[in-house]
């Protein structure tokens, strides 16, 4: 039972939401785009969207400047 986060394999935890996963991964930066199996999960759904076993997750960090 595992998931892949930014190409790293990590344990799958039952009923884990996106924001809890980000905390577990120590991804403390607040400005991220999250895709689960290629589908966007918007910031408004970070606390309600639960990760399924085997999911492939991209966490894309955006830094200010332009």
């Amino acid at each position, binding site marked *: 039972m595992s998931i892949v986060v930014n190409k790293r394999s990590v344990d799958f935890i039952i009923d884990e939401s996106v924001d809890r996963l980000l905390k577990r991964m120590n991804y403390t930066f607040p400005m991220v785009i999250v895709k689960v199996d290629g589908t966007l999960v918007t910031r408004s759904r970070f606390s309600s969207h639960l990760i399924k076993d085997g999911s492939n997750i991209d966490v894309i960090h955006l830094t200010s400047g*332009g």
Partner: protein
Amino acid sequence: MEKIEVSRKLEGSFVGIAGAGGLGSNIAMALARAGVGHLLIVDFDRVEASNLNRQYFFLDQVGDLKVEALKKNILRAVDGCDVDMINGKLVKGSMADPFRDVDVVVEALDDASTKVSFIEEVLLGLPGKPIVAASGVAGIGGSERIRQRRYDDLYLVEDPKALSSEEDVLLCPKVGQFAHHQANIVLELLVGGSE
């Protein structure tokens, strides 16, 4: 591809750019010079003296609306680029709306929170539309860290180690590097890459 075919394809292309600051002004100039026929540029700001260390404006344009100044500069550099401008702020909930008809969307915004909102709205609202974004443009040196990533329709140019613009300098060389990197991805999306 034949050179004439590249020119024809670019001439028939429409690119939308969100932001006319360090990234957007340089991206717009690069795409116009490369021969992109139609640009849409959205920004709400005016040119400030502090912008001139990286943005494609001139001393006598300080105080002017960025979209108007940029259009003038583009039309001084090239002939035959159709430049549409929107002087206004992108508002959450309708950020993707102006970009409905473009072939490629470019994220050239400043603030990380606005970048995230814009990218989210384009991915959700305009499915299948490529968007080219940038992250980590502040600082000096470190060019070996700059890389491009693709996540389906989202293309990102990033320096993962860069500090934010609140913590580090924004200067023409690195900002310009990112701008031209983004512009080069746009061209590749429009006409295909060279082998």
